C-alpha cells in the first residue's frame, strides 16, 4: 500500500512539473512567433521601400526569405485568387500569436494595399514598432512568469505528493 502511495506521489509531482514545463514552452512559442513576425514585417517594409512590387509578389519573396514562410505563401495565393490582403491574411495559415500581436496584424492587414507608398510604409513602420514593443514586453513578463510557473508547479507537485504520502 505504501509503495502505491509512493508511486502516486511521484506521479503527481511529475505531472505538475511537466504541466509547468508545457505552460512555459507555450509562452516561448508565442514569443518566438511574434519575434519572427516582427522580423518579417521589417523585411516587408524594406521590400516595399526598395522594389514596390505588388503585395502578392512581395508576399512570395517573404515566403522564401522570411521566417513565417507558410503564412506568407498562403497569403500570396489568396491575393492571387483576387482577395484583398485583409481577406487573404484572415484566411491564411497563421502561427499562434498573442492577442495583442494578432490585433496589430489585423489592423495592418485591413489597410494594406489600399493607399499610396508613403502611407503603406507608415503603416508597416507602425506595425513593426508595435510588434517590437510587444516582443520586448513579452520577453520581460515571460521571464518573471516562467519563474513563477516553475516555482508554482514544483510547489503544487510537492504539496500533492506530501498529501498522498
Amino acid at each position, binding site marked *: 500500500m505504501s509503495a502505491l502511495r509512493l508511486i502516486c506521489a511521484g506521479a503527481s509531482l511529475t505531472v505538475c512539473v511537466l504541466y509547468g514545463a508545457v505552460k512555459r514552452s507555450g509562452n516561448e512559442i508565442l514569443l518566438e512567433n511574434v519575434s519572427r513576425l516582427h522580423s518579417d514585417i521589417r523585411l516587408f517594409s524594406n521590400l516595399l521601400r526598395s522594389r514596390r512590387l505588388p*503585395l*502578392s509578389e512581395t508576399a512570395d519573396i517573404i515566403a522564401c526569405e522570411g521566417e513565417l514562410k507558410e503564412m506568407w505563401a498562403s497569403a500570396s495565393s489568396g491575393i492571387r485568387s483576387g482577395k484583398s490582403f485583409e481577406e487573404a491574411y484572415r484566411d491564411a495559415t497563421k502561427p499562434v500569436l498573442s492577442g495583442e500581436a494578432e490585433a496589430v496584424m489585423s489592423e495592418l492587414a485591413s489597410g494594406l494595399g*489600399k493607399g499610396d507608398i508613403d502611407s503603406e510604409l507608415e503603416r508597416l513602420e507602425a506595425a513593426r514598432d508595435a510588434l517590437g514593443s510587444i516582443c520586448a514586453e513579452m520577453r520581460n513578463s515571460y521571464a518573471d512568469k516562467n519563474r513563477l510557473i516553475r516555482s508554482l508547479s514544483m510547489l503544487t507537485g510537492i504539496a500533492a505528493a506530501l498529501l498522498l504520502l
Partner: protein
Amino acid sequence: MDTTVNERLRSILTLLPVRIAKAVAVRIGEAAVEEIRLRTARPPQIVTAKDEVLAECASFTADEAKELLEKLCRHSVYSMEEELRQGFITLEGGMRVGVCGRPVIRNGAILRLVDVYGFNIRFTAEATGCAEGVLKHISEHGYPLSSLIVSPPAGGKTTLLRDIARCISDGVGMLPQKVAIADERGELAGCIGGRPSFDIGARTDVFDMTPKAEAISMLVRTMSPNVIITDEIGSPRDTEAISEAARCGVCVIASAHAASRDDLFKRKSLRPLFDDGVFKRILLLKRSGSILRMIPITP
C-alpha cells in the same frame, strides 16, 4: 467578337459591381463592347462598335470606385502609382483603363492621384490582317518607310500599329525586318512577364512601361532595330527621340492624335518632325462604326 476579347471582357466583369456587370453582360450579345465608362454618381456608359447606351441600373458610387481601383491594381494601389499619375492602369492582356480623379500637386507636377472618380475601361481588339491594305502606303520597294498614323482618340491607331508590327516583322507584303516597339503604356504588345498578349511578329522586341523617349533611345542603342514602332507621340521629348532615331537610319512608324490634316500640322510639338522630313508617309484614319478608311496625307 473574337474569343480573346470575350475572355478579357469576362475577366473585367468579375471586377465590376454585380449590377453593372449584369448590365454590360446584356450588351455583350448585341454588339462588340469597346468601352465601359464608369463615373461616380452617374449611370455606367457602355460603348459598342454600333452605339453607346447609359445602362439602366443605379449610379456608380464612390465606394464602388474605391473598390474597383483596388481590384484593378491587384490590391496593391501603391505599385501602380506611376501609372495612376499618368492617368491610366494597364491590365493583363494590354487592356488599358483610363482614370480621372483628384491629384496631389507638388511643384506644379502631379505627384499622385489620391481619389479616382471615373474609369474608362477600353477593350483592346486584335484585328489580325487589318494592316495588310495599309502596307502599300507605308513601304517602297519592299522596305517600310517612316510613317505617321493619325486619328482622333479611339480611332483604331493602336490596333493598326500592332498589326503593322506583325506584318513588317513576319515579312507580310515586304521583306522581314527587325522591329522594336516602344510601348510606354503596355498597350501595343500587352506583355505579361515578357510574353506579348498579341501577335506582334517573330522578329519584334518590346520595351514596355518606359517613357517613349527613353525607350526609343535605348532600343536604338541596344537592339539595332530596322523599324521602331510607337504609339501616341506628342511631347517634345518624343519628337526629339524620334528625330534622333531617324537620323540614326531607323525607320519610325508612330501614331498621333488629330482629326484632320490641318489639326495635325497645327500641333506645335510635332512640327519639328515635319520640318525635318522624318515621316515619308502620313495616313489619316477615319472611322465610321467598325469601318476604317485610310486617307494618305502629303507631308
